């Protein structure tokens, strides 16, 4: 095999105890055609600078940990290949719109808080015990939510959504897509509870259909679709509440 070629990887660096501002640092990385950006980062950590910080786990686009901006695009670094950038330099930065904790690692706390708000789990109409047997669902019913259930919480859609960057309280693409995933599940009865959050100030109306979230999603979740298909339901919910408040208010 021929000698590995060299690619310049420019990484954003930020160590809170040392730096007041982030800055870029260049590394020359030998690479072979099958090396991913993640493997490039691992080479830097193992051979050039052990203090470079980044997250990863599965190396196979499953865990959702390794998301970062590569030349301005939010991607999973484990399924993005250095060969596609050579001979240009590849610039690796933390996911946009999230606070930087250290180098390429962002703080996902805001996403996790918001995820809890939409109760991303089955809320059955009646409590069940194992003796009740398994839930039954037809393949057609499963199709209604299957796409959205593929979300791996990688946050690429958040890095692609300018509304999330501009409006700190917006629940954002994946949280709303996951709320839709459970609403669309025939075994679930939690729609009314989730609607309070989805139709609130930070809910579906915060989306202005930029549409980038669906383009960058590595799992084909289509969060923009999930959000916008909930707008008619949210509008009906507002109407219902208006009618109810009209009925209950005294002259």
């Amino acid at each position, binding site marked *: 095999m021929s000698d590995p070629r060299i690619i310049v990887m420019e990484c954003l660096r*930020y160590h*809170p*105890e040392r730096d007041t*501002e*982030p800055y870029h640092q260049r590394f020359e990385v030998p690479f072979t055609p099958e090396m991913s950006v993640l493997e490039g980062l691992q080479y830097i950590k193992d051979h050039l600078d052990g203090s470079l910080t980044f997250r990863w786990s599965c190396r196979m686009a499953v865990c959702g940990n390794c998301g970062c901006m590569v030349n*301005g695009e939010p991607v999973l670094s484990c399924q993005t290949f250095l060969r596609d950038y050579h001979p240009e330099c590849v610039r690796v930065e933390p996911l*946009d*719109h999230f*606070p*930087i*904790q250290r180098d390429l690692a962002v*703080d996902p706390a805001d996403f996790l808080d918001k995820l809890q708000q939409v109760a991303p789990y089955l809320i059955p109409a009646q409590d069940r015990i194992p003796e009740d047997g398994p839930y039954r669902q037809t393949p057609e019913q499963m*199709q*209604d939510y299957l796409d959205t259930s593929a979300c791996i919480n990688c946050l690429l859609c958040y890095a692609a959504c*300018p509304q999330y*960057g*501009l409006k700190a309280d917006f629940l954002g693409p994946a949280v709303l897509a996951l709320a839709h995933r459970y609403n669309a599940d025939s075994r679930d009865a939690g729609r009314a509870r989730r609607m309070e959050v989805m139709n609130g100030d930070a809910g579906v109306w915060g989306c*202005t*259909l*930029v*549409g*980038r979230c*669906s*383009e960058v999603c590595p799992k084909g979740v*289509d969060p*923009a*679709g999930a959000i*916008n*298909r909930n*707008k008619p339901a949210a509008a009906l919910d507002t109407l219902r509440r208006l009618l109810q408040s009209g009925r209950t208010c005294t002259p």
Partner: protein
Amino acid sequence: MTALRTHTRSMKGWWRRHPAYRQYLLREATSVVIGLYALCLLWGMTALLLGPGAHDVWRACVQSLPGRAFHLLALAAFSWHAWTWFRLLPLTVAPLRLGRYRITQTLVHRAALGAWALASAALLVAAAGGLR
């Protein structure tokens, strides 16, 4: 536990970061031109109510050079808005089924474009009939 110090990046100039953001802003901006065009039509209809004098003034204005330029701009704005909006339309429609078949997003997109072309053609034919 003390909270970790983090660095928050600014959103200044966010639209410069990706062509898709600029296309989105352009789509939103075309709404302003479309709104102005609606006002122009409203003015024409009011002029029609007010009488021949007012209507002639309105016609002279829309047939002037700036009036024609505005109409060309409005046509471009409408076309861009319709094109980009219809591309996103499937995202706003719940998955549709015809019996056992799912209607794909591509089909929704194409149907919308077809309806747009038909409506525009019908309008052109009607306008040509009115001019004769």
